[in-house]
């Protein structure tokens, strides 16, 4: 179905269509407040399943983690320290926020990561630049990727810190620990020419430490993104947060069992999150918790109908040999554009 839509809109491939959506959403999330109004960030979801930063003074929305930390810090934490029962009344705003989050998440599922998140878009833009510069591609094999995957779940434990800060046990700077270390805070504010966030706090030791760690992480990510696909996404707390609700959305990746998969594995080469399971599993196991629904596996699967993106069982996009032949002419599964970069090793191989 998507394949029917985007050619009519002038997009030759799903990848180009997704890239255009990413750019549009980058402008909406980073600069949307200048169009939708200064107070738009309080009018939309206030619980976006992507890293839309509240520190960005032109942003149009903010991510679910901002709201969750705030409520843990100022509402639930306070209720606990005042020896009050954490009643339903105390939890209602949090439940409303999660409800608002799920209302939008229901329709796009993990596609918020692969199509909407501004930090994801920035990393993919940097990766494209790295391809043009002929930088090597660093990947995780199936042994290494298993060591990185648990980190995103450990990141969710950090939600305990704003609760403790609200109780007065932890320092106030730990009231929003995700925001303190999130590279999206630096990336999106720098995109609006605001240098305040990249300047580290000097008023407190803990604030200084957190900001320094954030800046170092940001610097690491923007360089790593030149030679690694989506480096920050591997440990992003929103990847795990979204993964908790992944099975509840009707939008999903579906893979049929196919005997040719064991000999092919192009889909796992194409996957920017190095999900090797996509090459050998099928059914629900193929829709891995790390999947961002970018659709590249379906684009680069050379067999008809094996990998599909479906919404309520309706196929939005499915793999096909004809599409695959056209796709690889423009870009390799690893993301290397054909004929547009000087790749000395390939020239030597051709010789």
């Amino acid at each position, binding site marked *: 179905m998507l394949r029917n839509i985007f050619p009519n809109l002038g997009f030759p491939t799903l990848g180009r269509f997704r890239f255009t959506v990413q750019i549009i959403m980058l402008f909406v999330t980073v600069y949307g407040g200048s169009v939708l109004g200064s107070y738009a960030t309080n009018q939309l979801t206030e619980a976006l399943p992507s890293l839309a930063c509240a520190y960005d003074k032109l942003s149009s929305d903010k991510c679910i983690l901002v709201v969750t930390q705030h409520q843990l810090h100022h509402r639930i934490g306070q209720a606990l320290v005042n020896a009050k029962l954490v009643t339903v009344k105390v939890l209602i705003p949090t439940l409303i926020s999660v409800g608002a989050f799920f209302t939008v998440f229901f329709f796009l599922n993990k596609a918020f990561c692969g199509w909407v998140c501004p930090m994801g878009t920035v990393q993919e833009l940097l990766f494209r630049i790295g391809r043009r510069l002929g930088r090597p591609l660093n990947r995780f094999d199936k042994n290494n990727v298993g060591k990185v995957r648990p980190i995103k779940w450990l990141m969710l434990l950090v939600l305990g*810190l704003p609760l403790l800060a609200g109780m007065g046990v932890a320092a106030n700077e730990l009231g929003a620990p995700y925001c303190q270390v999130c590279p999206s805070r630096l990336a999106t504010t720098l995109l609006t020419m605001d240098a305040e966030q990249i300047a580290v706090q000097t008023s407190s030791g803990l604030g200084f430490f957190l900001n320094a760690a954030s800046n170092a992480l940001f610097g690491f990510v923007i360089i790593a993104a030149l030679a690694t696909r989506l480096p920050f996404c591997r440990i992003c707390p929103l990847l795990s947060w979204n993964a908790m609700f992944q099975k509840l959305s009707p939008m999903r990746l579906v893979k049929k069992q196919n005997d040719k998969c064991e000999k092919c594995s192009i889909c796992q080469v194409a996957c920017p999150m190095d999900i090797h399971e996509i090459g050998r599993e099928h059914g629900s196991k193929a829709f891995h918790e790390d999947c961002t629904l970018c659709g590249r596996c379906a684009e680069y699967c050379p067999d008809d109908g094996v990998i599909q993106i479906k919404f309520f069982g309706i196929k939005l996009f499915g793999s096909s040999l004809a599409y695959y032949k056209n796709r690889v002419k423009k870009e390799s599964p690893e993301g290397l554009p054909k004929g547009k970069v000087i790749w000395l090793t390939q020239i030597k191989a051709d010789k």
Partner: protein
Amino acid sequence: MTSNDIISGGVIIKSTALLTVVFLSLPLLLVAPSYAADAEQHQAHMQHAGDHEGMAGNERKRNMREMVQWTSFPRLKMMMGGEGGEHKQVTLMPKNIAPSSVDAYSNDIHAANMHRQLPYDLVLATLDKPATGGFHWLSAREEQVDKVLVASMVYYMSERGSKDPTAMFMLQKNSLEIIPQPFPREHSRYRANEDWQFLVRFNRWPLAQQKVMLETQNGSKVEFNSDAKGIVTVHFPSDFKASARQGDMVARNGDRRQSSDFVLAAELVNAKKTYITGFNGSYGPDAFSQRSLVLGLGFTFFGMLGAAPLLRNRKADKKSAMKTAPAISTQTNKKEA
């Protein structure tokens, strides 16, 4: 998968592991700055919670400075008490004005109780808990025979259900009005060395070339003039003294949210009646007064260096690419066949 993928993956893992250790060690930092949460320290902590609540400032420090009259313009002084959160109690004390009532305007202009009068005992008004969160307008009016005094401010409540306050801000509430264009949103605030715009109007008509006076608790007094559209661009002065930055506004948990009050006032004579309106709020020191851009860039560069090895084309890369490129090409050719 090539050996080089394993090598580069190992570099990524080592770097990721280092950053993971950094993040997971954060709980250990609870020991250093954490203190027993007694009610008084927690109260100070709650007062600094959030940028807009921080704009209310450290009340004990403020109360001491309030003993010195720093402006004669009408204003509303906000005081917070209670346990915090939903039990927080906000009271308003009109200063330099003796209003007959104190009014509150909700950002939901279609609500039945959008405009309501607050409980007021001629000394203090108590702010009720509005139905929606977000920005609310508070106003006090005193009408004399030949003079009308108005004091206004904006209060932000961190609750869900807020509406865009622009329409409410632009509603006529008094004759002579100063309206922020816009008011700082959540996670933002008025700060020294920043320019913020306000609309000055009389009976809904913008006032061109109207003199507007800014007076701050730190002692600054600055005049501005509105343009042809009634917009005045106010540059908040950098008047926080170094001694104040080091002073006792630091909570024991290290929070150093500095704040000072200001009032923006205009005066107009019309039909033998003098209208004086003051819009008051609080502002903080310069955004970079407690931040270091140089150190920030330094740590960013440090992080970049950490990832630099990933950019190297290793000899093993080239050899493996020569081996794998034909293999992928062969696979592609097979599929196409």
